[in-house]
């Protein structure tokens, strides 16, 4: 059994290591870049999963933490202030500042529940974006809507992830290198998520999600535990943001719009709230799907109808919207729900109804 499992892990590891080269050979660099973004989004989705999936706090402004991480990295590693701090300083610092913002957001909003929390977090996300967009005067900090360009690539010692290398006759490009770097961070985030899930804290989050009053009666300090959820989620967002800034070499406020927050939430819910595997799946699908439709919309029409009737790009987003609806109708608990949720769902509708009334409408 044990042997079996470890050989499974080995296969998975080899597959993950070989993946960029397989994608590259089959589909080209563009798709490796998409895989890179998928990893960044998986990190984001896992961070949001802690807040929404574990602790049951609906956050619609999550992208703000991504923005904070990205701008921290950008400001400390670009010609903007002439600073070129190394990645092993800026990335953790970005995560720390994002964590601080998480607490800042969490503290005044803890009393709020469900949909009120949603709109406040939404507002918070917009406030951060608006400030980033406007802090170019009277004192130029963020360079306003122009964004910050020429950001230092991700570097460790003398090794830059932004360059190409020849290694044993194989050319390894920047998209491949970033893939491996992001993979390491993603695995780390997955590891932390899973450990948290099984820890006292993780159980406390679930308890709060299921019934806040009961959790409090059991001696859980609900305020601190909720704050911790915000802080942890924000930290993951901050790391992902720093990596994004180094990868893109350019950040501007338009990358951190409300639609991005909504997309990350879609990943969590569509994949399966509270389940790490499901969230990863959700991230992969929602990054890949629009790109798949981009390539498929034209040729499929050509094959079916003999000519391109509708602009492929109009059809692409239409199909994406339809896919969101259909998947949710088909699997309301997400594609790959956590085992606990699935049990509830399969076993007895009344359990779920009960849960619903308490989870989100605690004080209704």
């Amino acid at each position, binding site marked *: 059994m044990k042997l079996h499992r470890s050989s499974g892990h080995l296969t998975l590891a080899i597959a993950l290591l070989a993946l960029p080269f397989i994608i590259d050979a089959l589909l080209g660099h563009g798709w490796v870049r998409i895989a890179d973004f998928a990893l960044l989004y998986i990190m984001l989705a896992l961070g949001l999963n802690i807040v*929404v999936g574990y602790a049951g706090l*609906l956050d619609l402004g999550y992208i703000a933490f991504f923005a904070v991480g990205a701008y921290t990295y950008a400001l400390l590693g670009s010609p903007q202030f002439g600073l070129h701090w190394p990645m092993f300083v800026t990335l953790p610092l970005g995560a720390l500042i994002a964590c601080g913002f998480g607490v800042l957001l969490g503290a*005044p*909003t803890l*009393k*709020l*529940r*469900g*949909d*009120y929390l*949603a*709109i*406040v977090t*939404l*507002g*918070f996300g*917009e*406030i951060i974006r*608006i*400030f980033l*967009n*406007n802090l170019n005067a*009277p004192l130029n900090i963020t360079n306003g809507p122009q964004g910050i360009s020429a950001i230092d690539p991700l570097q460790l010692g003398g090794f830059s992830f932004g360059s190409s290398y020849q290694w044993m006759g194989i050319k390894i490009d920047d998209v491949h290198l970033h893939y491996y770097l992001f993979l390491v961070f993603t695995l780390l985030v997955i590891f932390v998520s899973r450990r948290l899930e099984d820890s006292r804290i993780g159980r406390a989050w679930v308890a709060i999600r299921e019934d806040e009053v009961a959790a409090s009666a059991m001696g859980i300090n609900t305020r601190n535990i909720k704050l911790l959820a915000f802080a942890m989620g924000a930290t993951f967002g901050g790391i992902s943001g720093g990596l994004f800034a180094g990868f893109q070499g350019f950040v501007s406020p338009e990358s951190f719009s*409300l639609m991005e927050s*909504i997309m990350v*939430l*879609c990943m969590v*819910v*569509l994949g399966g*709230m509270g389940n790490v595997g499901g969230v990863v799946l959700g991230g992969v699908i929602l990054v890949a799907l629009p790109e798949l439709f981009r390539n498929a919309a034209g040729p499929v029409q050509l094959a079916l109808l003999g000519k391109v009737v*509708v*602009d492929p790009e*109009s*059809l692409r*987003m*239409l199909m*994406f*919207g*339809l*896919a*969101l*609806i259909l998947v*949710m*109708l088909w699997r*309301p*608990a997400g594609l790959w729900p956590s085992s606990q*949720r699935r049990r509830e769902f399969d076993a007895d*509708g009344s359990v*779920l*109804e009960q849960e*619903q009334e308490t*989870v*989100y*409408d605690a004080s*209704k």
Partner: protein
Amino acid sequence: MDILLQQIINGLVQGSVYALVALGYTMVYGILGLINFAHGEVVMIGAMIALTALQALLAAVVAPVLAVLLSLLVAMAVCMALGYSIERIAYRPLRNAPRLAPLITAIGVSIVLQNLAMMIWGREYHSFPLPFTSTSHQIGGAVVNDVQIGIVVVALLIMVGLMWLVHHTRTGRAMRAVAEHPAAATLMGVDINRVISVTFMLGSALAAIAGFMVSANYGIVHYYMGFMLGLKAFTAAVLGGIGNLRGAMLGGVLLGLIESLGAGYIGDLTGGFLGSHYQDVFAFFVLIAVLVFRPSGLLGEKLAERA
């Protein structure tokens, strides 16, 4: 002084539009406890349908007043059908699903409607052919035109009508009953599905009216117009206390006033540091402040009065 008066008028007009759209959010929320994210897009579809109908009617040389009324009716009818279908297709099957599932389908519906509109009406902006000129009036140095007066009056009338409907009709009583306790309402012989469908259709009809008025006021229509408006209206609904009809009205008008006064005065008060570029920030700050002190919005959600 005339500047202040003008800013208050600006805020009232803008706020009335927010309020009308917010009513749609709040009605659905009051009954289902669901944020109907696609509501903003229903407003956009209403505007688009009204545009097409108005163009066709004017081309057929129908009397201007009749054309306006007819196109408004057509838009309302289409939106009611749309609201009904959205609920049947995207929300009803998920009524017993986890709470966030319908939120995702709502986002899906929103994307679909937007892109359908783009395919049907094209990517460009359209002018909204209002068949009469909207004359301006001077009130103590401030300017206000017919369309703006119309917006405020219609919003008020609809508000009063809706209150009457909810409190003095059979349907209204059924709506309140469902909002209060769905299971008990069923036992009392209320057809929940019917009530919910009626709510969606009512909300969508209001969305069509709002879409028409926004288009008439600004003179342009675009497939992307619903998103921001929906977001603002949703904020307004929460500000007033989502689920509460009077709250939606109050929240809408208040949000309009905060925006216009904030953009108009805070820049000068802070020496240009916090100017009109922070317009939305003021709105959200007020929202957060209100919710921190009154976690259920300004007027709260008095259960009996919800819906």
